[in-house]
């Protein structure tokens, strides 16, 4: 199929650009298209494939969560929707160009920059961002050439969020436990050769302050070759007693951690949860060898010896030219979804999802968030009538020579089918294409 054969947009009504095809972009689109206001949505995506973090963030061993893509596919078949993949807003087209041609532009660009720890040695070889590792095992084209050397006995994950648990769990599982997931083949091959026997999951807070959810922690109950424990030096018995017994989520989390703390290690691998530890330096000759922690008045904290470090301490949004940025929160500057310069609203420019409120919540949180932004767009649209100077289709015609290929949703359906076919041959739900060239080649059939 030619890249120019994009699905036709409804010519009447308002024209809205959504930038990004992750959950919040889809849910803002859904609310816009369901509003009854005559409008059409063009969804811009840098890659030829949609779904954002549902494809590149959700762990391969959490297939049920990925069923949410059926909801995205339903939204994509709504009349008035077009997917414009393979176009990078900020590189191939400026935000200001979009604003000239659309009545409203909604940024749903996510939070794809990993935050730094701010300690010496964090850029030594062997020290990685957890987010890079996640993107690598999920086959993101920008990360598939990353080199993760698992030829060491111990790894440390810094952070107590759900991403930290994903990384620890993928390191803890055997190749056989991952073989029938949609994990990228290159990652499975490296993980199969892993020599890691000990995984430390380190956080600054107490057990009750950990941000990971009980549901993610439960996954550690049934690991085939890995025992999960809590280092007894870090905890007092009442650390496992919830301050608010009315909170069943906290109660379950603490009771799981208590059970882990009583675990005797018998399996080949061991995952050790550590609490109350603040890293101050990562050290090593030429590569990571140890992590040092802040000392406490009550006790001395020993170093952790390890050859690998994964830093999982938050993410922020990539700034875009023409869009004011909130440095403090790491998001596009906004007031309840309307992009602002200082206190004044930039008309016709909106934001939703993690690039609006930072990286928190589950997939569904982004539905409420996308709907709220869509309401702001819809409230402002009457005042936008006749304000745009350009035409979206003329803009797309100008863009076409700037990009390798504009990818439609029908093209994505072809890529999707090809990936599932490749997967079926290997007993997996899908084998992802991990390069843009291979994705584009699959649209030619």
């Amino acid at each position: 199929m030619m890249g120019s054969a994009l699905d036709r947009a409804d010519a009447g009504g308002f024209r809205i650009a959504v930038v990004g095809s992750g959950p919040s972009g889809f849910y803002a689109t859904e609310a816009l298209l369901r509003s009854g206001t005559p409008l059409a949505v063009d969804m811009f995506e840098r890659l030829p494939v949609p779904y954002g973090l549902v494809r590149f963030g959700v762990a391969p061993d959490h297939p049920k969560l990925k069923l949410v893509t059926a909801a995205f596919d339903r939204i994509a078949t709504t009349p008035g929707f077009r997917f414009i993949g393979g176009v990078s807003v900020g590189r191939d087209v400026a935000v200001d160009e979009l604003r000239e041609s659309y009545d409203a532009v909604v940024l749903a660009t996510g939070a794809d920059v990993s935050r730094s720890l701010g300690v010496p040695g964090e850029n030594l070889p062997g020290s990685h961002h957890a987010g890079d590792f996640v993107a690598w095992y999920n086959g993101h084209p920008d990360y598939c050439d990353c080199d993760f050397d698992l030829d060491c006995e111990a790894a440390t994950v810094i952070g107590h969020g759900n991403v930290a648990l994903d990384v620890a769990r993928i390191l803890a599982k055997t190749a056989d436990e991952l073989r029938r997931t949609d994990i990228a083949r290159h990652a499975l091959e490296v993980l199969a050769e892993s020599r890691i026997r000990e995984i430390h999951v380190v956080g600054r807070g107490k057990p009750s302050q950990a941000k990971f959810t009980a549901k993610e922690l439960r996954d550690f109950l049934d690991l085939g070759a890995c025992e999960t424990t809590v280092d007894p030096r870090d905890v007092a018995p009442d650390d496992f007693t919830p301050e608010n017994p009315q909170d069943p989520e906290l109660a379950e989390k603490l009771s799981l951690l208590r059970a882990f703390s009583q675990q005797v290690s018998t399996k080949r691998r061991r995952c050790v949860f550590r609490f109350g530890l603040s890293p101050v330096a990562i050290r090593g000759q030429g590569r990571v060898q140890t992590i040092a922690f802040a000392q406490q008045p009550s006790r001395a904290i020993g170093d952790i010896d390890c050859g690998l470090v994964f830093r999982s301490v938050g993410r922020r949004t990539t700034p875009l030219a023409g869009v004011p940025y909130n440095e403090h929160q790491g998001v596009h500057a906004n007031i309840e979804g309307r992009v602002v310069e200082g206190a004044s609203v930039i008309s016709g420019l909106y934001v939703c999802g993690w690039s609006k409120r930072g990286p928190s919540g589950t997939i569904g949180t982004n539905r409420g968030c996308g709907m709220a932004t869509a309401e702001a767009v819809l409230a402002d649209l009457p005042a936008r009538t006749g304000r745009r100077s350009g035409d979206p289709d003329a803009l797309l015609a100008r863009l076409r020579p700037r990009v390798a290929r504009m990818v439609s949703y029908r093209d994505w359906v072809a890529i999707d089918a090809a990936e599932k076919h490749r997967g079926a041959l290997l007993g997996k739900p899908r084998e992802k294409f991990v390069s843009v060239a291979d994705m584009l080649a699959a649209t030619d059939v």
Partner: protein
Amino acid sequence: MAYVVTDSCRGCRFTECVTVCPVECFHVDDTMTYIDPENCIDCGGCVPVCPVNAIEPDYRLAADKKFWIDVNRKRAAETPVLTARLPPLPGADARRQELGR
């Protein structure tokens, strides 16, 4: 597993859950909402937004609340999907206070 709506929803029906459900698996009747266990993807997004803590994962239900698993399955099959928030039932706020939330 799946998530389950339990008795705290009766007479409140705040429906904050519906806004955050990514797969629209909430059904509704005159008294409360129900989760369709066939469509729930276990994201857990609805649990923290419920003002009366009515939603729990099925495995975490107390023995005397396990029957809600079947109630949700049965009623979800009999009632329509709710796609957008409804106004809470009269007396919902009073009930929330009564529950100490």
